[in-house]
C-alpha cells in the first residue's frame, strides 16, 4: 500500500512536469548572446506566432509591425487627449489638415491647398476628398470642413472642460484666444470667491510673530482685496460680472473658424502665428464627425466601434492592458502609399526595460529603448540607434512663490541663483548616471529643436552662438565663482546657514541625480543643507503649484515647433511659472513675439533674435532656472524598418511613412 501512495504521488508530480513541458519543442538558446541579423531576413523566426507563414511563400505577406506599449490610452477624444499614448494612436488613426513628415516638416494631409492672406491673419484651406471609415472599414461619410469647426469648438465647450483648450490660444484663433483668457480669469475669480466663503480661522495656528486671528484677518483682507480688483477689472471691460459670462459665451460661439462649404475651411487669427501650419498636425486640431458624435452619444470614443477613422489606420482591436491593434484603413485618401498592413502593440503596463529588451532579442517586437545597465550591455550592437530628444530637464528655483521664507529671500538675489547653476557639475549626470547620450545643458531651448529660415536655417543654438557665444548656454560650471557669489548673497542677507528642499521624481536613477545635486550644492555652496524629497508626481506638482519647495526638478517637452513653447513659461503669473519670477521686460518681449508687432511674417528673423536674446536674459542675467540636461537615449531597432521619423512634438511616430523591408 505504501507503494501505491508513493507511486501516485510520483505520478502526480511527473504528470504536472510533463504537462508543463509538453509544448516545448523550440528551445530558445541564450538569447543574451544572439546577434540580431543585419541581413535582409526576418529577425522573427516564427516562434512568436505573429506571422502565419514564412517570408518566402507568398509575396503578399502582410507587413505587420510588432511594438510594445507600456501604458493604456487615457482618451481617444481629440479634445480630451492630453498624453503621448493617446496622441500616438490618434495621430495615426486620425488625420488633420497636415501631418508630420521627415524632419518634423508639416506635410499636407486632408488639406489640398492653403491660401494665407498677406497679413498672415486668414488661412483658407481647401480640403481633399476624404472619407470617414467605421471600424469595419465601411465608408461612413465624407470629411467636411464642418467636421473641423465642430471638433475645434469642442475644445472650448465648457461642458467638456478640455484640458488642451490652450492649443486654441496657442494658435491665436480669433475669439478663441480671448475666450481662453477670459475663461481663466473668470475661473480664477470664482475660485477666489469660493475660497473666501470657506475660509476658516481654525486653519491658522499661532506663531511667534502673529496670532492665528491676525493671520486669518490678514489673509482674508488680502483675498478680499484681490477679489475686488478682479471684479473691478471685469466690470471695467464688460460692464458687469454677468456681462463677462455673456461675453465669454459669445466669444466661444464666434470662434474664428468657418466652413464656407464642404471643402473650404477659413480660419481667422488674432495675430500672425509663424507656426500655425505646424500646429495643424497636432491631434487637438483633428476633425470629428458631428452626426456620428450625436449618434453614439456618451459612448463616443470609449470603444473602437464608437469612433470614426479618417487616418491611415483603423483601431481594429482595443483591449485595455492587453493589445492595441491597428490595421491599414482602406478608405484613407492616401491608402496606396501606406506600406504597413498592421501595427500590433502588445500592451504591458509598466513593463520593465529588461523584459522589453528580451522581447526585442526574441524578435517579438521591432524596437525598444535601452535604459539602466542595458545601455552598456547592448549599446554596441549594430542595430543600436540613438534616440535624440528635445526634452529639457531643469531645476526651478523658488524665488518668491508661496509664503516668504529666508531661503526664498536669499534666492530672490540673482547671485545666489547663479551660484546654484555654477555649483553643479552636469556632466556627471549625463555621462555617469545616464550614460545614454543625454547632453549637459546650460541652455534652455534644446539643440536640434528649431532653426531660423532668416538665418540660413541655422539651429537655434548656432544662432545663439553667433550672437552671444551662447551655443552651449550661459553661466557655466565654476565652483569657485559659485562659492564667492553665494557667500556674498548670504552675507548681504545676514545669514550663515540655509536649508534647501529639493523635490525630485521617484525612482532609482532619479535618486542618484538628486543625491548628486545635493552633494554638489552642499560641497560648493557654504552654509547650505539640502533635503532631497522624492515625491509621487501629483504631489510634486502640487508642491510646485503652491510654492512649497526650494528647488524643483522639472522637465518640459515642446507643444509646437517654436521657441515660444519654452520661453512663454516664465511670464509673470504664468500657469507653469512656479518660481515667482516676475519681470516686466521679459513679459514685454513675450508679448511682442507672441501676439505683438514682431509676429508679422516679414519680421521672422527679428523675432527669432529677440527670443534668442530673451533666453540669454532668462539664464545669463536672471538665472530663473538651472538647466540640467537635454534628454537623449539609445535604443535597438530592427534594421528592416525604414522611414522611422521620431517627432519632437505631437505623435511620436507617424506610421504612415514607416515601411518594413521584406
Amino acid at each position, binding site marked *: 500500500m505504501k507503494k501505491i*501512495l508513493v507511486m501516485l504521488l510520483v505520478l502526480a508530480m511527473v504528470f504536472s512536469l510533463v504537462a508543463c513541458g509538453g509544448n*516545448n519543442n523550440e528551445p530558445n538558446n541564450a538569447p543574451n548572446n544572439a546577434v540580431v541579423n543585419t541581413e535582409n531576413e526576418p529577425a522573427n523566426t516564427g516562434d512568436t*506566432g505573429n506571422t502565419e507563414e514564412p517570408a518566402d511563400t507568398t509575396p503578399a505577406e502582410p507587413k505587420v509591425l510588432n511594438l510594445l506599449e507600456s501604458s493604456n490610452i487615457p482618451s481617444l477624444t481629440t479634445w480630451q487627449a492630453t498624453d503621448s499614448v493617446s496622441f500616438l494612436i490618434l495621430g495615426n488613426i486620425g488625420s488633420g489638415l497636415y501631418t508630420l513628415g521627415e524632419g518634423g516638416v508639416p506635410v499636407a494631409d486632408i488639406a489640398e491647398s492653403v491660401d494665407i492672406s498677406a497679413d498672415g491673419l486668414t488661412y483658407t484651406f481647401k480640403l481633399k476628398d476624404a472619407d470617414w471609415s467605421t471600424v469595419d472599414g465601411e465608408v461612413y461619410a465624407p470629411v467636411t470642413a464642418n467636421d473641423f469647426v465642430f471638433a475645434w469648438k469642442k475644445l472650448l465647450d465648457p461642458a467638456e*472642460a478640455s484640458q488642451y483648450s490652450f492649443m486654441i490660444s496657442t494658435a491665436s484663433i480669433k475669439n478663441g484666444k480671448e475666450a481662453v483668457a477670459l475663461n481663466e480669469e473668470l475661473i480664477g475669480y470664482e475660485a477666489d470667491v469660493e475660497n473666501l466663503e470657506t475660509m476658516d480661522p481654525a486653519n491658522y495656528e499661532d506663531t511667534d510673530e502673529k496670532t492665528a486671528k491676525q493671520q486669518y484677518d490678514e489673509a482674508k483682507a488680502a483675498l478680499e482685496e484681490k477679489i475686488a480688483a478682479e471684479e473691478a477689472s471685469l466690470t471695467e471691460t464688460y460692464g458687469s460680472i454677468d456681462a463677462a459670462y455673456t461675453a465669454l459665451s459669445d466669444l466661444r460661439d464666434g470662434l474664428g473658424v468657418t466652413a464656407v462649404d464642404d471643402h473650404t475651411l477659413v480660419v481667422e487669427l488674432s495675430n500672425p502665428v509663424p507656426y500655425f501650419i505646424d500646429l495643424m498636425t497636432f491631434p487637438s486640431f483633428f476633425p470629428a464627425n458631428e452626426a456620428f458624435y450625436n449618434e453614439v452619444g456618451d459612448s463616443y470614443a470609449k470603444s473602437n466601434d464608437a469612433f470614426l477613422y479618417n487616418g491611415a489606420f483603423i483601431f*481594429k482591436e482595443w483591449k*485595455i492592458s492587453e493589445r492595441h491593434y491597428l490595421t491599414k484603413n482602406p478608405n484613407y485618401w492616401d491608402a496606396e502609399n501606406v506600406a504597413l498592413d498592421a501595427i500590433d502593440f502588445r500592451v504591458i*503596463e509598466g513593463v520593465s526595460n529588461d523584459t522589453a529588451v528580451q522581447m526585442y532579442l526574441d524578435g517579438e517586437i521591432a524596437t525598444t529603448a535601452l535604459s539602466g545597465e542595458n545601455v552598456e550591455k547592448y549599446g554596441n550592437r549594430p542595430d543600436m540607434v540613438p534616440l535624440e530628444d528635445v526634452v529639457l530637464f531643469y531645476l526651478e528655483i523658488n524665488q518668491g512663490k508661496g509664503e516668504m521664507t529666508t531661503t526664498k529671500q536669499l534666492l530672490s538675489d540673482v547671485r545666489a541663483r547663479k551660484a546654484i547653476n555654477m555649483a553643479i557639475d552636469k556632466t556627471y549626470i549625463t555621462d555617469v548616471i545616464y550614460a545614454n547620450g543625454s547632453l549637459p545643458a546650460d541652455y534652455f531651448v534644446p539643440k536640434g529643436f528649431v532653426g531660423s529660415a532668416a538665418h540660413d536655417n541655422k539651429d537655434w543654438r548656432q544662432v545663439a552662438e553667433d550672437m552671444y557665444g551662447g551655443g552651449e548656454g550661459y553661466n557655466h560650471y565654476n565652483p569657485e565663482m559659485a562659492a564667492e557669489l553665494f557667500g556674498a548673497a548670504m552675507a548681504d542677507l545676514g545669514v550663515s546657514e540655509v536649508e534647501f528642499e529639493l523635490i525630485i521624481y521617484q525612482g532609482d536613477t532619479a535618486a542618484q541625480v538628486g543625491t548628486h545635486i545635493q552633494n554638489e550644492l552642499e560641497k560648493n555652496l557654504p552654509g547650505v543643507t539640502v533635503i532631497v524629497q522624492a515625491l509621487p508626481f501629483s504631489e510634486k506638482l502640487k508642491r510646485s503649484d503652491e510654492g512649497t519647495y526650494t528647488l524643483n526638478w522639472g522637465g518640459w517637452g515642446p507643444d509646437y515647433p517654436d521657441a515660444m513653447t519654452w520661453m512663454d513659461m516664465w511670464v509673470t503669473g504664468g*500657469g507653469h511659472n512656479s518660481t515667482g519670477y516676475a519681470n516686466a521686460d521679459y513679459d514685454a518681449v513675450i508679448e511682442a513675439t507672441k501676439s505683438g508687432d514682431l509676429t508679422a511674417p516679414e519680421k521672422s528673423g527679428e523675432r527669432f533674435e529677440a527670443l534668442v536674446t530673451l533666453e540669454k536674459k532668462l539664464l545669463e542675467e536672471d538665472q530663473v532656472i538651472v538647466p540640467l540636461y537635454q534628454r537623449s537615449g539609445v535604443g535597438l531597432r530592427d534594421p528592416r524598418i525604414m522611414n522611422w521619423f521620431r517627432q519632437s512634438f505631437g505623435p511620436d511616430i507617424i506610421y504612415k511613412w514607416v515601411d518594413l523591408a521584406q
Partner: protein
Amino acid sequence: MLRYVVERLFLIFLTLFVVLTINFFLLRLMPGTPFDNPKITPAQKELMVRKYGLDDPVGVQYLRYLNDVLHGDFGVSFRLQDQPVTKLIAMRLPHTVQIGSMALVFGVVVGILLGALAAIYRGSFWDGFVTILAVIGVSIPSMVLAALLQHYVVAEWGMFTYLYNPIDATRGISVWDSLYSSILPAFSLSLYVISATMRYMRSELVEVLNSDYILLARAKGLNKTQVIMRHALRNALIPVITIVGPMTIGLLTGSLVIEMFYGVPGLSRLLLNATSQNDYFLILGVNVFYSFLFVTVILIIDLLYGVIDPRIRLRGGKS
C-alpha cells in the same frame, strides 16, 4: 441553515458598506489630485475638478456616490477615458482568476499529497525532504523565484514563455497557449500555497493518526489505507480548509510582483496605477471588490466546514 445564510449575507452587506465608507473618506486624505498633467494650468485643473463634482463638500459627494452604487454604478476612472470602474475590473479579473486558480489547485493538491506523505512516513527521507521544501517555499520571495524561473527555465532551458499571453484570436493565441503561458506565473504563486498546505496537512495528519479512533479503526481490522482514506484524511482536512480561504483571497486579488514580472494585466496592477494617479473611484471600486471577495470566500469556507465535519453544522442541522 437558511436563516444562518441570510444573516451572514446581511453582515456581508454591512461590512461592504463600512469598507466603502471608510475608504471613501480615507482616499480624500491622499496627497495630490487626479489631474497632474504638467501642461495644464491651475484654472483648467479647477475645471476638471468641477466636471467630476470633486468641488462639492465631501459629504455631498459621498451621498451621491452611495446613491450611484445602489444603482449599480461604481463611477468612472478619471484617467482612463471615463471608462466605468466595473468594466475595468471585469476586464482584469479573468487573468487574475486564471492564474490564481491554477496556482490554488496545483498548490493545494500537491501540498496535501506531500503533507500526507510526510505524515505517513514520519521521520523518513520523504519527511525531511518535504520539510526542507516547505522552508524553501515560504522563504523565497516570489520576486526572486520569478526572476530565477525566467532566467533558467525560459532563457537557459528554453521552456515556457517570459510573459503571460492573454487569449487572443487575431494574434493566434488559443486557450491552451494562454494556459501554457500561465504555468510559470501560477507556479511562482503556488510555491507558498504548497508549503503552507503541506505543513498544516502534515501536523494535522500526524495528530489524527495518533488519536484513539484511528487505533479503534485499526483494531476493527481495517487496513492502513482504508483508515487513512476514510477516517484520517477527512479529519485532517478541516484546518487545511481554514487556511485555504485566506490563500484564495491572496491569489484572486493577485500578486503585484508576479503580475509585473510576467506582464499579467491583472487586478493588482490596476490598483497600483489607480493609487499612484489618485483615481478615486477606481481605487474604491477595487477595494470594495476585494472586500466582497474576502467576505464571500469566508462565508463559503464556513459553509464547507459543515459539509466536511457534521459536528460543526450550525443551527438547523441535525445535532
